[in-house]
């Protein structure tokens, strides 16, 4: 039915990016522009005793050096209102506490993490600014750093946010069924501690801000490498006490984000403030070492789970207590925390579930959502549980998955608790057992098992591991689209979402093209700029295709109606009209048509145009789409590994995925999102970890120590698709952005266990480095031998 939706169209974005003519924030150059450098704390927790800027100020080319006392009129950055809002029924259900916490734009009395900004130097260029920053002398008096969340949550621990009573910034409790009863009736109970470490999203483009004050319009112009320009606008307006619309924020080409470029950073407040104050454009481009210390980080959860199950493999209850190490501030309230709690059971029917969570402050860089936002952590927990149960019962993990999986006929399936938006957690569509069957076929599971036995005889240890997830995608509250058709018949679509490589200009022109009956080439999509639409949210949480996609489709349909009316008027016909490639005609007489250009001219005001009686001039339509609740994408991942038992090295040989994201708009882009997400998931399974020492010093301060996967570590993923349409928007779209990153840790961790079987190891702690795995292997060998001798 659709002509362009569902087609792998080449991207409109590519030409400029391939020819070096894109416009990233670092590429912006303005007359009289200066550059800024931050002086950052080398301490995790310390009092600021004195800051001496005299020597630094004396350097030629320095325009200004500012510390907290110079910017007292800026309000601090607090937790983001939009993410703190919880609907009353959810509040009643989970009794949450979210304590107020904040970060000063420049540290005032004390610093609370390594990399926190203490002062800023503005100079003629970055080289001079760094010369001056070197000479800023800050005297600190170290305070006791809190690095371990378990230590930080103790009653007598020193306070990180001093106005609070303790370091437990927020907590909640969600429950359904009766875990106690299930435990008392269980055949088996296991207790596991499962950890996902702290990660960085590491987009290849670091953060960056350019700002200038336009004296003519009295407008603050801000360019930022951001996922949420509207959030920057409203937060800037709040912190600087300015009207929202006196600020114009642009996210130009953004070189990747993955979550941590969402929200608002102190730099995004301070650079615009100073540009206005010193009346000179300022550019600040984060360098990679700053990025590794100061760009916000993610994951960092420890789960303590108790699981009961029956002899036949039925999992009857899960009780979870988990902590999130939030670093020095929690800006996103329960976003990751509740995502974790409501996603843990995934594709499984586990009627009794109880989850308690604490978000704990420590002296580390603040923790925020990153691709998957709380889901990779719990999918790792859930699918490690499936594997552990299977090993305990000595059956293939697939049997345990099948035994507990929600069946197609159960849809829509109610998990018995609420989504964060207050809607009942009801999966809209999908067939998980079918996905599992497809995945089994894709890898030829039976053949692999045979091959595995053969290889074992040759001393080669190969294994296969599975993970699955169900992800609530397309979170609201809304996203908008505006369509404008000019008198030449060209369509321009404006959207409030902000891409960082997802191909919005391409996919939204595909959707608009089908809605309007024009060729995507005749559509220009404008995004990433607060003036294109009065309100918008941003791109995160696998939400843009669902929300902005629906908004543009609805707007296009509204526009189509108006276009058809004008065309009927021009063609002087009452017949039903069709639109194809911009031509509008009655099916009975296709030779007699008008074009969008004709309609565009007809829509001109007054006598310039030619409109049906009473119709308003111009072709302008706006639609805001607010989803009823999230839509549920799902996937099965299978990893095949070879383990070198003597060294602990893991070679990921194959990776396969069966994926459902509802209606696919552009298969090429969907596959690209899945492959790219999996690469990040592979990173978190085997390589990536942000490490702090016991004094809160960051040890992974360069790319020599924070290990991003390269082309040698990421295989080409085999993919198969399902297309169970969402029932929650007209196009049936579910989100796809995060999915790939969610399941690899469990799939790979389980594959490693499988390869080493019958040695019993537990891969419950990521990343699985060669050193760690070798240690587990040695421990398992020792206990295996002990068992043999006993």
């Amino acid at each position, binding site marked *: 039915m659709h002509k362009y939706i569902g087609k792998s169209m080449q991207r409109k974005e590519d030409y400029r990016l391939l020819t070096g003519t894109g416009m990233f924030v670092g590429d912006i150059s303005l007359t009289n522009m200066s550059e800024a450098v931050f002086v950052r704390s080398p301490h995790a927790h310390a009092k600021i005793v004195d800051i001496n800027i005299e020597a630094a100020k004396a350097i030629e080319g320095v325009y200004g050096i500012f510390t907290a006392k110079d910017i007292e009129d800026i309000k601090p950055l607090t937790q983001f209102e939009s993410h703190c809002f919880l609907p009353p029924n959810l509040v009643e259900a989970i009794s949450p506490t979210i304590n107020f916490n904040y970060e000063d734009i420049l540290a005032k009395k004390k610093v609370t993490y390594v990399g926190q900004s203490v002062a800023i130097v503005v100079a003629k260029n970055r080289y001079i600014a760094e010369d001056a920053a070197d000479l800023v002398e800050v005297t600190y008096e170290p305070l006791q750093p809190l690095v371990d969340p378990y230590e930080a949550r103790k009653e007598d621990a020193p306070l990180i946010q001093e106005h609070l009573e303790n370091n437990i910034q927020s907590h909640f409790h969600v429950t359904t069924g009766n875990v106690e009863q299930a435990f008392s009736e269980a055949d088996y109970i296991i207790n596991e501690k499962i950890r996902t470490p702290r990660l960085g999203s590491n987009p290849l483009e670091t953060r960056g801000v350019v700002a200038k004050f336009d004296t003519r319009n009295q407008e603050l112009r801000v360019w930022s490498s951001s996922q949420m320009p509207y959030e920057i606008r409203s937060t800037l307006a709040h912190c600087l006490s300015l009207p929202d619309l006196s600020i114009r924020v642009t996210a130009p080409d953004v070189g990747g984000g993955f979550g941590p470029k969402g929200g608002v950073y102190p730099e995004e407040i301070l650079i615009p403030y100073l540009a206005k104050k010193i009346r000179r454009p300022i550019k600040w481009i984060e360098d990679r070492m700053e990025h590794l210390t100061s760009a916000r980080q993610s994951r960092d959860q420890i789960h303590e789970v108790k699981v009961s199950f029956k002899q036949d493999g039925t999992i009857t209850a899960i009780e979870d207590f988990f902590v999130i190490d939030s670093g020095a501030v929690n800006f996103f309230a329960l976003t990751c925390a509740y995502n974790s709690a409501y996603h843990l059971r995934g594709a499984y029917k586990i009627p009794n579930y109880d989850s308690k969570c604490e978000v704990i402050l420590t002296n580390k860089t603040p923790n925020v959502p990153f691709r998957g936002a709380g889901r990779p952590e719990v999918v790792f927990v859930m699918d490690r549980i499936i594997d552990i149960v299977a090993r305990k019962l000595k059956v293939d993990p697939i049997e345990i998955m099948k035994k507990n999986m929600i069946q197609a006929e159960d849809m829509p399936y109610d998990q018995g608790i609420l989504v964060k938006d207050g809607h009942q957690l009801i999966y809209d569509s999908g067939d998980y057992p079918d996905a599992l069957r497809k995945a089994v076929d894709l890898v030829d599971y039976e053949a692999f098992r045979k091959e595995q036995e053969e290889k074992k005889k040759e001393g080669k240890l190969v294994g296969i591991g599975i993970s699955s997830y169900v992800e609530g995608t397309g979170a609201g509250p809304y996203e908008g689209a505006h369509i404008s058709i000019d008198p030449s018949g060209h369509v321009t679509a404006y959207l409030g979402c902000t891409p960082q490589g997802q191909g919005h200009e391409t996919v939204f022109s595909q959707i608009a093209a089908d809605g309007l009956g024009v060729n995507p080439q005749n559509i220009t999509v404008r995004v990433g700029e607060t003036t294109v639409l009065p309100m918008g949210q941003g791109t995160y949480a696998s939400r843009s295709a669902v929300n902005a996609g629906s908004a543009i489709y609805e707007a296009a349909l509204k526009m189509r109606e108006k276009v058809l009316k004008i065309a009927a008027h021009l063609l002087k016909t009452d017949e039903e009209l069709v639109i194809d490639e911009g031509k509008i005609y009655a099916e009975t007489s296709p030779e007699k048509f008008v074009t969008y250009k004709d309609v565009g001219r007809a829509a001109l005001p007054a006598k310039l145009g030619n409109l049906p009686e009473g119709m308003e001039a111009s072709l302008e339509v706006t639609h805001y789409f607010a989803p009823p609740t999230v839509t549920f994408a799902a996937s099965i991942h299978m990893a095949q590994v070879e383990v070198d038992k003597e060294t602990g090295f893991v070679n990921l040989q194959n990776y396969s995925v069966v994926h459902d994201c509802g209606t696919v708009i552009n298969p090429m882009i969907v596959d690209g999102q899945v492959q790219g997400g999996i690469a990040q998931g592979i990173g978190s399974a085997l390589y990536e970890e942000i490490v702090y020492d016991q004094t809160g010093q960051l040890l992974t301060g360069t790319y020599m120590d924070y290990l991003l996967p390269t082309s040698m*570590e990421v295989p080409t993923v085999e993919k198969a698709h399902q297309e169970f349409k969402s029932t929650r928007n007209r196009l049936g779209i579910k989100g796809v952005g995060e999915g790939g990153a969610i399941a690899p840790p469990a799939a790979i961790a389980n594959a490693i266990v499988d390869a080493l079987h019958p040695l019993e190891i537990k891969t419950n702690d990521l990343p699985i480095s060669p050193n760690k795995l*070798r240690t587990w292997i040695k421990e398992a060998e020792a206990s295996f031998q002990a068992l043999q001798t006993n």
Partner: protein
Amino acid sequence: MKPSKFKYLKPSSVEEALTYLEEYGDDCKIISGGQSLIPVLNMRLSTPEFLIDVSGIKELNYIREEDGYIAIGALTRHVEVENSQLIKEKCPLLIDAIKWVGHKQIRNRGTIGGSIAHGDPSAELPCVLTTLRGEIVIASVDEEEVVGPEDFFLTYLLTALQTNQLVKEVRFPIMTQGERVGHSFVEVARRHGDFGLAIAAAVIGLDNQGLIQKAQLAVGGVNPVPLVVEEAEELLIGKKVSEALLKEVAELTSDCVDPEGDLHGSADYRRELIGTLLKRAIEEATARAWEGEEKVG
């Protein structure tokens, strides 16, 4: 991440470079390819007053065969070694190893002298030089001396090079001619192109019965300096490779290294790992020697 200010000097001869070194000594740094130095300059961990750019000294760019060894001028780039037919024929272990140095873009710029002078015990070239018992020619205004790796490498990133000296040439002995010689270079790194967690290199010569008559073994990344595993070399001579013998070698090797732990591997892990790697290197070198896959020379 921008370098702090320095004065830039660009000598066009060794003599001129040495004069600068003599004059500015402690306050200067030599830059050639810059692949190790520029990151540190960018981080401002190194803030020299003078930067002496030796990359224009054409006379130090050569690969030639001399009296029993391949002489490589200090300013010869890795890529030139990688592509050298002479080295492929006369010193194949070096070819195997150099592929592990960083990535192509690094090898296109980085120089042999730079790698050696950097003195990184995890680096490939120092390990090969140590295995083959090569030599380093260092020069100052007054004198030129030839030193062995055991005297040149002092500890992590520290060498015997004085502030008025520079590395002029690196000499890799021509590998033993003959039918039954094999070599192997084994490295494991977290990712391709990273610093090796551990490196092992072996050259094994066999007699007609398959008994080992020559063994050169060295390890890197597990000791403050690259290390010849002499005890293991001695142990192998006159014996036939067997599972038990290799196990003994592995244990012996683990005992004689002194690794430090870091984020990517504890000291204990590296100690065990190096035994495994050297065992594998000997196995491979022996197999190659026996099968005569490579007839050196």
